């Protein structure tokens, strides 16, 4: 038993454990904590038992451990999401250590390791993460090589050097494959089930939802505009229209539910959306949300393939955004939406409020309705009212059953959620069709690259009302209370105690850090735009631009050409005859000396020793005797005693001997 364990050499095991630790490190965030602990224990056990310090276990113990891990995984994950798959993979990757005896086992483990590195990249796709994954691949390859070569004769660095060399040679072929191998679309979908607290706005709005979102400074999306970026108060990134209120929570009615797919789609035939005015073209890179709605400025006129426009003038797609996704949109800031009239169904939905909720607000709304000559006046009156004695805060007092009543009459402090919710309720009670829109507002321009970064703390809710002849019009009651929120961003609209709650509170305190962060973000963004988003369309364009055609056979040809070039470069030395090994300087020098003496009439006899030769020539030509004696002594020193002799002295001697030629 122990003999079998000892059969795996220590360097191999060492490299293997280091590689495993490197590979698993970034994955620990995704794994259940007990699996991480188990991995640690198993790795330490393997190390100690191979050194004979900890006992080995029998086969039944190992089977027991494996079964326990399976049971643990089954208990932790109830669905077959990606995290469960990765955990299973990691469990296998780690437990294989228990049964690791032959070099073949190490190879199998290494192959599995390559795949686990791939799963790393499902979660981290930034530049740093990519470099880290590459490092993992290289170290894994070194392990494979150490496993194969075994004891390395001189220096442990040989396998490392070799692996780096091979990787460098593999790079051109890899790039050719990367750019030229055709991309195929998704084959199946397994939800990625990223970390808890999925980012982005959710499909319903209850009190406190958005406030918790605002405590995160994670990036929600980045947008690159061709040309100008619209003013801050135009930057309303709409995601969902919430038009159903149950007294506490706003959610999507069946008309607006983007999960219902085609039913919610915008009817082209209606021609309800008229756009005009300045046009903005931009690309949005959305962080994974695990939801199927996208973010756009109003009103989108055209957008990437595979994206649909909803009846609420928001964008959505079939599948959830499980990876960073890029799409382009063209927006016109001037538009009219359903100006010709509201369908009976839509009107009914947009006016519906629960019968018994917030009686005080309903009474007030009906009263104001009677006093106002038209809708605009009523809206303005409401906005003036809240502007006068309401305040903006992220820590509002808790609200009871009739939340709108309490908010409007008692607490009078809150943030976008409260303002938009009560505004819409009030308008509906007053007979004006209204709805809540959620998404992000604003964003920060990255000074390095000039793109717009929208973070979770920019989450926002606002309102839309339908007016005769104008259609749906955006009204943001929050801006009435806190105009800075809209013009300069949420950081500038809060007092210091409140702004501590924001996600980026820490980094705002250190200017240097935030500057560095901006640079890093810019670099990452560029990496994503050019590397991560190289897709089928870009590939085609790239081929067209580079070779003038994107025919598949041409791609094959270029990949083969890249491979062929590497073959020639690597194997050329083998075929260009034997490169004569350059002999030491002293030997070449002595050969020259002999040739010189032969020219001067004293050829060396075959088999004649260096010293005999020098003596013979010295007797025949006394003027050379001194020089030859020194030359021979130096030569013997260098060749037979392996001593360092001055090369310049040797050259001088040869020169002097030459100069005696014409005496």
């Amino acid at each position, binding site marked *: 038993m122990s003999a079998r364990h000892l059969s795996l050499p220590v360097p191999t095991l060492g490299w293997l454990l280091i590689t495993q630790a490197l590979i698993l490190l970034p994955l620990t965030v995704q794994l259940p904590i007990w699996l991480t602990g188990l991995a640690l224990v198993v790795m330490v056990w393997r190390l100690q038992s191979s050194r004979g310090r900890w006992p080995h276990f029998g086969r039944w113990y190992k089977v027991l451990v494996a079964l326990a891990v399976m049971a643990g995984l089954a208990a932790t994950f109830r669905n077959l999401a990606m995290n469960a798959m990765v955990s299973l993979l990691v469990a296998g990757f780690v437990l294989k250590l228990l049964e690791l005896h032959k070099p073949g086992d190490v190879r199998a483990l290494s*192959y599995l390791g390559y795949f686990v590195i791939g799963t790393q990249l499902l979660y981290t796709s930034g530049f740093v993460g990519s470099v880290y994954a590459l490092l993992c*691949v290289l170290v894994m390859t070194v392990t494979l090589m150490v496993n194969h070569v075994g004891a390395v004769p001189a220096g442990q660095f040989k396998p490392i050097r070799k692996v780096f060399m*091979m990787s460098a040679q593999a790079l051109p*072929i890899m790039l050719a*494959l*990367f750019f030229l191998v055709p991309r195929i679309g998704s084959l199946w979908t397994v939800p990625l089930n990223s970390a808890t607290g999925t980012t982005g706005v959710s499909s319903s709005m209850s009190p406190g939802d958005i406030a918790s979102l605002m405590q995160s400074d994670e990036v929600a999306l980045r947008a690159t505009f061709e040309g100008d970026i619209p003013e801050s108060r135009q930057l309303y990134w709409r995601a969902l229209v919430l038009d159903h209120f149950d007294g506490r929570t706003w959610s999507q009615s069946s008309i607006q539910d983007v999960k219902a797919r085609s039913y919610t789609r915008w009817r082209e035939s209606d021609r309800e959306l008229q756009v005009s005015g300045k046009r903005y073209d931009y690309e949005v890179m959305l962080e994974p949300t695990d939801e199927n709605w996208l973010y756009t400025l109003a009103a989108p006129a055209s957008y990437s393939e595979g994206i649909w426009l909803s009846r609420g003038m928001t964008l959505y797609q079939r599948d959830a955004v499980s990876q960073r996704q890029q799409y382009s949109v063209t927006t016109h800031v001037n538009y009219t939406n359903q100006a010709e009239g509201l369908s009976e169904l839509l009107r009914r939905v947009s006016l519906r409020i629960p019968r018994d909720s917030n009686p005080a607000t309903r009474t007030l709304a009906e009263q104001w309705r009677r006093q106002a000559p038209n809708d605009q006046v009523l809206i303005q009156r409401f906005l003036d009212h809240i502007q006068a004695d309401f305040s903006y805060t992220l820590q509002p007092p808790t609200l009871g059953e009739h939340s709108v009543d309490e908010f409007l009459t008692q607490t009078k402090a809150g943030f976008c959620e409260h303002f938009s919710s009560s505004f819409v309720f009030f308008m509906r009670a007053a007979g004006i069709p209204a709805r809540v829109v959620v998404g992000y507002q604003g964003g920060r321009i990255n000074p390095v690259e000039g793109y717009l970064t929208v973070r979770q703390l920019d989450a926002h809710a606002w309102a839309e009302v339908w007016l005769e002849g104008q259609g749906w019009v955006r009204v943001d009651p929050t801006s009435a209370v806190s105009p800075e929120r809209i013009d300069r961003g949420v950081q500038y609209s809060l007092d210091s105690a409140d702004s501590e709650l924001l996600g980026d509170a820490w980094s705002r305190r250190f200017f240097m850090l935030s500057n560095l962060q901006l640079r890093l973000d810019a670099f990452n963004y560029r990496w994503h735009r050019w590397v991560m988003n190289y897709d089928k369309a870009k590939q085609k364009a790239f081929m067209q631009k580079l070779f003038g055609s994107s025919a598949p056979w041409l791609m094959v040809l270029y990949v083969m050409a890249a491979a062929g070039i590497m073959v020639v470069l690597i194997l050329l030395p083998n075929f260009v005859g034997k*490169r004569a090994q350059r002999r030491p300087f002293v030997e070449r020098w002595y050969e020259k000396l002999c040739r010189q003496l032969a020219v001067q009439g004293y050829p060396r006899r075959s088999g004649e020793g260096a010293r005999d030769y020098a003596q013979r020539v010295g007797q025949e030509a006394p003027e050379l005797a001194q020089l030859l004696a020194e030359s021979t002594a130096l030569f013997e020193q260098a060749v037979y005693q392996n001593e360092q002799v001055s090369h310049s002295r040797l050259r001088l001697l040869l020169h002097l001997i030459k100069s005696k030629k014409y005496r």
Partner: protein
Amino acid sequence: MQTSHRLETLFWRWTERRSPRARQVTLRHRSIYVVPSLSSLGFLLATVLLWLLGTNYQNNLILATSFFLIALFFITILHAFQNLSGIKLSGLNTQPGFCGEIFHIAIEVAASAQGRDHYLTLTESAQSEVSVVVPARGVVKVNLPVQTQTRGWLSLGRLMVKSHYPLGLTRVWSWVYLDAQALVYPQPKPAQLAQHFGADGDSEDGARLLADDDFIGFADYQPGAPLTHVAWKQYARGGELQLKQYGGAEQDSLWLDYQRLMGDVETRLSGLCYLALQWQKSGRDYGLLLPGLRIEPACGESHLHKVLKALALFDLRDVS
């Protein structure tokens, strides 16, 4: 069955043409074969799975990883070839030994001129496998254990030089026909020389060299005795069939006589071999008499070698 055997023969003949038998063999592309190893299937499977993962999640980095692994695999093949290319194998002189012993055939492996380390395994048969690391520009001497059951010249069979370097994903090999030889003496087996019989009259050949001329007397006929030793005169006179006996069995100079041993050729040679070693130990002069071969009595190591060599090479047609 017949055709497959013929095809196999043809195949080996073809490989031998590609790397002819020689005292020194340098591996070149003509005689180096590369195929992906069995375990590379696992590697390729991992690569394909990565490609599927990357394709499905439209993740370019995962795709890039799978492309990198494919490219690495390709590069590995080239390095595997280079690992064998240019190395020089030479057969060295191997110490002779006795039949049935394990021979260590000496082979010198020299690195290629390109200044690379070489990792390889030399295999002659299932039992003889030696792994060596040849340092850059260095030379390594390998003793390849080979077992033999026949005397004579032991020549190295088809030698396989193989390697899974660098990552174990490839299997690269070459069949080498190296002209490395070792002399195999017969296996020593205890034996005793039979009572020797004198010859009747003079004879020119060397067959009766053991005897001196002193006639001792008659002995009863034994079947199998040389006819020249039969006392024909007495028999013609009507007497018993008798053999003439001569003296001089105990002498300083001894002859190892093939004729005075019983059994088949191999048994006799084994017996002679055993006696030669015995007599060498006792320090006396001895000579060898084989049908058609005579080595004058002498002593010493080189004499022993001469005798044993004669025994090893005697009448090899029968053996092979």
